[in-house]
């Protein structure tokens, strides 16, 4: 029978099928961080059970960590407490831990792939919705709750009903200044934030085939923002070349064995999906969000839609625009910007800083904006320095912070003040997401760079 990539990976991990119930799914890799794991460890302790396969779990500190002076003690006592709990718990159960100050420390969804822990055909979970990022490698990867973190620690399995399958095809060549972030925001704007709920998405077509691994991770990362459990892309030479020689990649004979298996991981030509969408890549513009969910996005040169043009609740739509201080029908170009944030598990990879540097090179930072450039990991930080990007950035008047989740969700000190406008390369523009009262516009690193040098929302195509 013809099957999809998703079926192949899922079916290979079903330990047991429960009639009228979920599948018991074996998990190959479990990532944990300081926020969603402490209560899970407490649960283990209360039940008196151990971690079944500590070698399959990888811990890093990211949500709470400061992005300056990381050598000093963490000031916020609650953050410090969570970081300490992670260190203590991982020690006690023999789990590897890349804490603050560790050379491999960084955002969980950045450090997994860059160390070769994430591989095709795997099942991967983490108590963080953006675990969907790892699907870029042809893995089934999704976010879970804390009860499920406890479940995976204690049994290496979770219980999940098999999601339905969706394929999103995009062909054509992307235009100048159009990045993977724009592709993802475009899809979400078309499908809405609930358009893929209940589905696992496969991205197919030459737009994704021609995309770098960093770009594919950005797209899969945002799958959750249209409600999907996760997104995945069939592994190919781009994937294999990315993984080869990374610290946790298989070597020698094991590599050959793995490669032979990975090459079988693709959707059969006559496999059927429960739902399928096809878009034209040439139609996609640099995108910007104007509202308070990631589906409220549009091409940067367009005007904010009228409430009547929007499906669903008009009052919710107006509430959202009121929060942002915008009105229907007005253009976004030229809007004032107070903060620019480049980073997060969506856009904190080396390619994102290359893009930012390409625009700011030879230009100067606008006086009215605060700009936070936060690499996703120490490895990305090193790459920025080695490739000479830091010189370009510094010359233009910007500085680089230390790795972490930073202003994506404001659990650390990096908060956008109430009422201020931020162009952010992160993944969510919900009310208060970047700090109470903060107003977020999601965009690509190119749009962020254009705002950083002009001080207003600017079409990056006019600068490249």
């Amino acid at each position: 029978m013809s099957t999809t990539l998703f079926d192949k990976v899922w079916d290979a991990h079903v330990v047991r099928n429960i009639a009228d119930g979920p599948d018991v799914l074996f998990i190959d890799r479990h990532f944990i961080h300081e926020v969603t794991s402490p209560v899970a460890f407490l649960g283990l302790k209360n039940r008196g059970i151990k971690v079944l396969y500590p070698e399959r779990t990888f811990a890093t500190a990211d949500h709470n960590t400061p992005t300056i002076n990381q050598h000093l003690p963490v000031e916020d006592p609650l953050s410090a407490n969570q970081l300490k709990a992670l260190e203590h718990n991982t020690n006690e159960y023999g789990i590897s831990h890349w804490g603050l100050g560790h050379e491999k420390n960084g955002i969980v969804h950045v450090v997994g792939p860059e160390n070769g822990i994430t591989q095709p055909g795997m099942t991967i979970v983490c108590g963080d919705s953006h675990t969907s990022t790892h699907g870029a490698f042809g893995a089934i990867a999704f976010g879970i709750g804390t009860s499920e973190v406890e479940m995976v620690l204690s049994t290496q399995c979770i219980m999940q009903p098999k999601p339905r399958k969706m394929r999103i095809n995009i062909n054509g060549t992307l235009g100048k200044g159009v990045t993977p972030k724009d592709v993802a925001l475009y899809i979400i704007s078309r499908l809405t934030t609930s358009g893929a709920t209940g589905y696992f998405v496969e991205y197919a077509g030459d737009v994704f085939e021609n995309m770098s691994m960093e770009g594919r991770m950005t797209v899969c990362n945002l799958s959750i923002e249209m409600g999907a459990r996760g997104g995945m892309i069939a592994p190919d030479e781009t994937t294999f070349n990315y993984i080869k020689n990374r610290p946790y990649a298989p070597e020698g004979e094991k590599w050959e064995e793995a490669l032979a298996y990975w090459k079988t991981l693709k959707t059969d030509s006559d496999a059927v999906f429960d739902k399928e969408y096809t878009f034209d890549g040439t139609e996609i513009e640099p995108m910007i969000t104007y509202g308070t969910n990631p589906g409220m996005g549009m091409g940067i040169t367009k005007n904010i839609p009228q409430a009547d043009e929007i499906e669903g609740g008009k009052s919710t739509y107006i509430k959202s625009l009121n929060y942002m201080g915008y009105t229907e029908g007005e253009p976004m170009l030229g809007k004032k910007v107070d903060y620019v944030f480049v980073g997060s598990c969506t856009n904190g990879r080396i390619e994102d800083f290359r893009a930012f540097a390409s625009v700011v090179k030879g230009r100067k930072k606008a006086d009215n904006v605060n700009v936070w450039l936060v690499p996703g990991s120490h490895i990305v930080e090193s790459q920025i320095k080695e490739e000479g990007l830091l010189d370009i950035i510094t010359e233009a008047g910007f500085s680089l912070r230390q790795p972490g989740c930073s202003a994506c969700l404001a659990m650390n000190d990096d908060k956008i003040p109430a009422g201020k406008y931020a162009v952010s390369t992160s993944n969510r523009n919900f009310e208060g997401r970047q700090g109470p009262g903060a107003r977020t516009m999601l965009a690509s690193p190119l749009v962020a760079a254009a705002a950083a040098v002009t001080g207003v929302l600017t079409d990056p195509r006019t600068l490249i």
Partner: protein
Amino acid sequence: MAYDKFEILKSTVVPLPIENVDTDQIIPARFLKATERKGFGDNLFRDWRYNPDNTPKEDFVLNNPVYSGKILAGGKNFGSGSSREHAAWAVYDYGFRCVVSSFFADIFRNNCLNVGVLPVQVSADFLDKIFKAVYDDPKTELEVNLPNQTITILSTGENEVFEINGYKKQNMLNGFDDIDYLQNIKEDIADFAKKLPV
């Protein structure tokens, strides 16, 4: 037992007819710093519920003494966003045992089922009827009957059948959780692990 058993719940309703209520609203990230599962109810809908100076916002429904109960009725796509189980904990800890909506986000729905909050998905029409009945009379009670999988507006008798996976239903009825189940099949899991493709 992981949480109190759920069989039949009869209660008044707190109406929140807003679409796309995301988990950042249900519990903002700055309240995720606890290392124990307690006290989250105090910060349920924190930024919609309180002004920056911690005084209650009068126009938010949780601050309106007219509405109370163990059932929260929300708009379409309730619980979108983050995987934070803290959102479900906050809903439970505040005193809700059931959330009714015409559409739930996946992870939130799962988290609810894992912590003892029953997510009841109804048609958009029925959800409108609930809101109308509650706005007409805040004392309107709903009966959520898990064994029969029905939800009824008691004043009018209007009802709808809701879906729940059979395994999860048994868990809710008995107050069990998945870990209890998985602990019993550990040998199967270990055997399976030896046969994985990579």
